[in-house]
């Protein structure tokens, strides 16, 4: 988190050079009130790889994603069982504040949600709330984040303009820049391309490909092609249960479960 992005030297062509069990989900169950949304999920998510969650609507993939940074805590009357650890440490550890967890886990939402502020202030928001006010650090972070989000060239001359004047694809890339500005370790993406046209989608996918050199990325997607294109590993969920998780090629070429095969080939879901 303290290292600057330019100093991280990772060879992106070698997948899986990180810990294979960076995020551990163990016997995890989750309830909205009386409704059980997740049932006994056990899954390891490797470091610096892209893991895709797929499955039909309501299967629990977004719920699980939103639990990785405890975003579901905002909802009344939720409860969980089992545990999730990140880098060996439980996210429910009472000595860890949820704020510091969220600083380590960035998130990009389905609907791009830039703040009604300038482009600049959007990008540096996570630093501002962390108490950084040094202009040089903010400027540098803004530029490097926007560069990594492949947006710098398009907005460098209008950083002080409102972020709401950007196009849909630009807004989503701005949200990605915002999510990676304070150097999180994990980047959660909740259907980041569902509201975008194919060109913008292509840009984001290319971006994901670059970002995985530095971040552990978990992406929820409805598009099987997208999962196949961007992810190293894929997990298939159905009715709150994890049906199958494996390397993406394996899931798409030779799934172990018939349910997975049926979903991937479009026979249901």
């Amino acid at each position, binding site marked *: 988190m303290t290292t600057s992005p330019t100093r991280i030297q990772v060879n992106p062509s070698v997948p899986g050079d990180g810990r294979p069990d960076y995020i551990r989900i163990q016997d995890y169950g989750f309830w909205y009130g009386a409704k059980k949304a997740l049932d006994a999920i056990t899954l390891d998510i490797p470091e610096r790889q892209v893991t895709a969650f797929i499955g039909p609507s309501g299967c629990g993939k977004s719920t699980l994603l939103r639990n990785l940074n405890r*975003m579901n805590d905002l909802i009344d009357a939720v409860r969980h069982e089992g545990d999730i650890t990140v880098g060996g440490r439980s996210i429910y550890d009472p000595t860890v504040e949820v*704020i510091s967890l969220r600083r380590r886990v960035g998130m990009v939402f389905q609907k791009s949600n830039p703040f*009604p502020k300038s482009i600049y202030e959007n990008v540096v928001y996570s630093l501002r709330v962390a108490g950084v006010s040094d202009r040089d650090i903010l400027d540098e972070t803004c530029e490097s984040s926007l560069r990594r989000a492949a947006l710098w060239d398009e907005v460098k001359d209008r950083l002080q303009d409102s972020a709401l004047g950007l196009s849909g694809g630009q807004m989503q890339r701005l949200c990605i820049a915002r999510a990676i500005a304070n150097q999180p370790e994990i980047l959660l993406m909740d259907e980041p391309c569902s509201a975008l046209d194919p060109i913008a989608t292509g840009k984001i996918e290319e971006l994901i490909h670059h970002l995985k050199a530095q971040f552990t990325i978990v992406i929820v997607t409805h598009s099987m092609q997208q999962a196949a294109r961007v992810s190293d590993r894929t997990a298939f969920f159905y009715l709150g249960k994890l049906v199958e998780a494996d390397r993406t090629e394996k899931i798409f070429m030779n799934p172990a479960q018939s349910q997975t095969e049926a979903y991937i080939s479009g026979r249901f879901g």
Partner: protein
Amino acid sequence: MKDPVPNVPDAKPPAGEAFVWFTSVGLVLGLTMVAALVGVIVLNGAKAFWPAAIERAELADGRVLLGPLVQERLKPGTPPAAGLLERQYQIGLREQNGQSFAWIDASAVRSSSLPPGALALERMENGAAFLLPAELRLAGGSRLAASDPAFLSRLESLIASVAERRERLAEVEKVRIGRINTELQRVKVGLRKAADLGTPDAELKAEAARLDADYQLLAAEARSLRDGFPADVLAGTDGAGRPLEFPVASLVRAWEPNRLGLGGKLALAASRAWEFVSAEPREANTEGGVLPALFGTFAMTVLMSALVTPFGVVAAIYLREYARQGAVLRMVRISVNNLAGVPSIVFGVFGLGFFVYVLGGNLDRLLFADELRYNNNTPVLGTGGLLWASLTLALMTLPVVIVATEEALSAVPRGMREASLACGASKWQTIREILLPASAPGILTGVILAMARGAGEVAPLMIVGVVKLAPTLPIDGEFPFLHMDRKFMHLGFHIYDLGFQSPDSDAARPMVFASTLLLLLLVLFLNLGAIAIRNRLRERYKTSAF
């Protein structure tokens, strides 16, 4: 050939159409009533300043009236078919006629004319007067006939010099002597305290003597100013030819309405309207201006908004963002909403009981113990005043701001909150950085509604600090400049006072409408200011369109 498809009945007209008319009738009715109300106020308010033509009416019984025709109506108690009309004339000269308006049967008017030289006078006392001028008897002994072309301008310049002297006198009497009186009061309290405690008081005595000497000087100056009013006299006759005399020193304004063209009338009306908003009231508020009331209303409304906004916003943030949503909170919310339905007078009573007596009384005991003890128990904060009145109204309008703020907060898209929290912001940071700016326009809408409600309120104010006539404005050049403990005047109460408490209600009527118009304009002005701010905020914080 038979149609193979069974006949479909003709499509009915689209089912919603009738309701377009139904719903628009509601709007039209409402708008019509509002337009009529505003129309009546504007028309009658403008009349207060318009120089009406002076009529000379000879009556069948030999009397002759001189004054403007105010209105003509069907004589009450007679059948409309009979067509009996009666006219109301403003005859002025209350001290002679007993009243300044007269109702005359239209049939009793034998002949009427508009004498071109007729003069309308506004006087310091006894209201208006109308006369046919004869001459100006100047103090030096010379005379200037009314037929002289310089007559009116000479009269006006004399009145102007009188007005200027009056102003100087007021400056000495009200401002400078007033300041000494305040000082003297303070010294007297100190002397009584010294006598009570047996401490040396030579210094205080010396100060008292010095102040007294200053006072004597100023009193002499005031006396000389008062004696120096010119002895010029305006002489003329009433309609019947009986002689009338008015010392110029008693006049405020004189004009010849029958000779004025449209431009002259407009200029005169504008000048009188300006006097209305910029001068102090005279004659038990029925004449002169309403500056203290206008200013009091403005100061109270602004102060109230400044008090209610932070209170309401903070309360709404707790209700919406922090409190656990549940049955208890629902009850609290319902209670807050219902608070808006409590009659305002109840808030007034609460303000008197809590703010004035409990809060003010205890603050007095704490901060102004000497004044209480050595000044006949005269309260400073323990009596109605600007601060308590503003607080009372702030309490009254609190539900409006809370409800508006809650609505505005809940209208901020969920994604915005989640994005902020996902960036590692705390709840408070999210509220401060994201939610409050985004809901500022909605909050301002609540403040606008609260202002409009507060500015027009009268009942609670009557018992927490508004008075018929306040000697000083709540703001002046003396420390601490804004005197929140002072009693003040208010346009709403002014309207009530003029309309229902004044001895000459016919004369006060135009002033009632003019004051109402002014109050409307003030609220409009305040609202436009708030709306301008809101639009700027909206521009800045408009939420994503997609």
